[in-house]
């Protein structure tokens, strides 16, 4: 008999309540996206929900944006997308890279130290982003550094650390020390034991951290709004000027397109890190 947290064979009220709450959660997460996706296929010029007829015309417009772009005047959507991707990749690699050893040290360290550190690494979440954005900008300008793409990457890294660390720590919680000790007793060096035993077991948490870093950086708006320059800009900044002026179906089609890009990235990361059919 398989015993899980969500029993399949017998469950009664327990299973019912759990499923109900989970479905509620799914609805809250997905409903706006579903509506927006439906609307993006509308054939009508203006927005009425649900649309009377459907078409792909707005996606045609999005494709046009990327292919025969206006050579002049507007910021390039292609450049912005590339910048967003590069920043997101940098942020993902660095934030996860620094959080894995920290999570290990905290999980194996003293409880009080761990709690303090967790709190410290929650801080980036607590400050309102507008305040952080302007502080980063003031500091960057007073140092007069030409940071290029790091203008955006450095604040993003700080911003995703809470998510990455929490996920790595949660994963560490389940890994018992005995496993490591067993590996060491079989002749592995402590580092070897970490690499061969602990890291693979942490994979779920690491992966979740990577994906969070990727998504948050790729879609971050508020801090980026202060830090971007006319030469180094990102996709959400580009997108902003479109959504302020109007919420026409082409904007919605673009949103769906961005969601698709995100999902593609997530699946890619999943495949690369987790291997086939693993984990999430």
């Amino acid at each position: 008999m398989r015993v899980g947290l969500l029993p399949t064979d017998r469950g009664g009220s327990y299973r019912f309540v759990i499923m109900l709450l989970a479905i509620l959660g799914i609805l809250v997460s997905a409903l706006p996206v579903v509506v927006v996706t439906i609307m993006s296929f509308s054939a009508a010029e203006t927005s009425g929900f649900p649309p009377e007829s459907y078409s792909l015309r707005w996606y045609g417009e999005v494709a046009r944006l990327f292919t025969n772009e206006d050579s002049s005047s507007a910021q390039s959507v292609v450049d912005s997308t590339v910048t967003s991707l590069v920043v997101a990749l940098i942020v993902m690699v660095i934030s996860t890279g620094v959080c894995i050893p920290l999570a290990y040290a905290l999980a194996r360290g003293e409880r009080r130290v761990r709690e303090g550190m967790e709190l410290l690494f929650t801080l980036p979440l607590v400050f309102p982003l507008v305040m952080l954005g302007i502080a980063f900008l003031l500091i960057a300008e007073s140092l007069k550094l030409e940071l290029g793409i790091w203008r955006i990457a450095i604040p993003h890294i700080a911003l995703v650390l809470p998510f990455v660390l929490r996920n790595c720590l949660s994963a560490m919680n389940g890994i018992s020390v005995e496993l490591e000790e067993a590996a060491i007793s079989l002749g592995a060096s402590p580092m070897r034991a970490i690499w061969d035993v602990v890291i693979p077991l942490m994979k779920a948490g690491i992966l979740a951290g990577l994906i969070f870093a990727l998504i948050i950086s790729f879609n971050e708006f508020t801090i980026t709004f202060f830090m971007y320059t006319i030469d180094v800009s990102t996709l959400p900044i580009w997108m902003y000027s479109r959504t302020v002026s109007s919420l026409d179906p082409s904007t919605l089609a673009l949103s769906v397109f961005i969601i698709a890009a995100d999902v593609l990235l997530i699946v890619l990361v999943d495949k690369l890190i987790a291997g086939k059919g693993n984990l999430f």
Partner: protein
Amino acid sequence: MSTTTLSKGQALAFAAPAFIAILPFLVACVYILRFSLSAEQGVIEGISIRAYQELMTPFFGRSVWLTLKLAFIATVIVMFMAVPLAFLLTSLRGSFARRLLTVTILLPLILNLLVQAYGWILLLGPSGALNTLLKSLGLIERPLFLLFNETGVLLGLVQTSLPLAVFPIVSAVRGISKEHLEAASSLGASNWRILRDVSLPLLRPALVGAASIVFAFNASAFAIPLLLGGRRVQMMGVAIRDMISPLFNWSGAAAAGMILILLTLFVLVVSAWLVRVTTVKTKG
């Protein structure tokens, strides 16, 4: 030699890269603290607590209370949905279903908030799909106002912070050893009892971690109250944004930011302490 605890040097070496990564943020924190003590509104000059004094109004007090209240309620609701979602996610066997569910939960982080708010208006607005349906069924006469008030803000907060809670819990659920559950189950404990006596206590660190991240995230929210609160719900994030621009009272914004950060930290520390106290009790 003990492998279970790292030496001080090792621990430091393991933690150092993360400290370098968070350093720019800590510099920004110190900068904000310094700014909050500036005697001028727009630049750092002189030392004064004027910015703090000017915040001591009943209006700001109400805003602080509202912020903590909404962040707390949203956190509770989120936890009630996140745990079942984590259970569901870990019990799905097909990898496609698992991926689909993961992506679905992540959606609120991906989609532009303005566009999401637009989706909610189409659904729950005064003339949205829900109100139209209820009206045509004859259940209501006047539209239900679900947006542009505290309900709308709560909905938005829950939605955007749900993914932050689900994934740490998922990682922890994976870590619960099946033996624990099987043992409890073979002793004839009901599902509810297993949940109360075995699963939840084992998940406790992850639950606290998830809840605190959600609370902190929600307490500093500003886009959601602007878009789904119709600006009628004065959370602190909104007040701070207004002070940055167009009021250009940056020292005031910094002071409000410091107050928010201290309150949030206080709540987090107290909740961590409460959990520790209760854990010790149950263990004893």
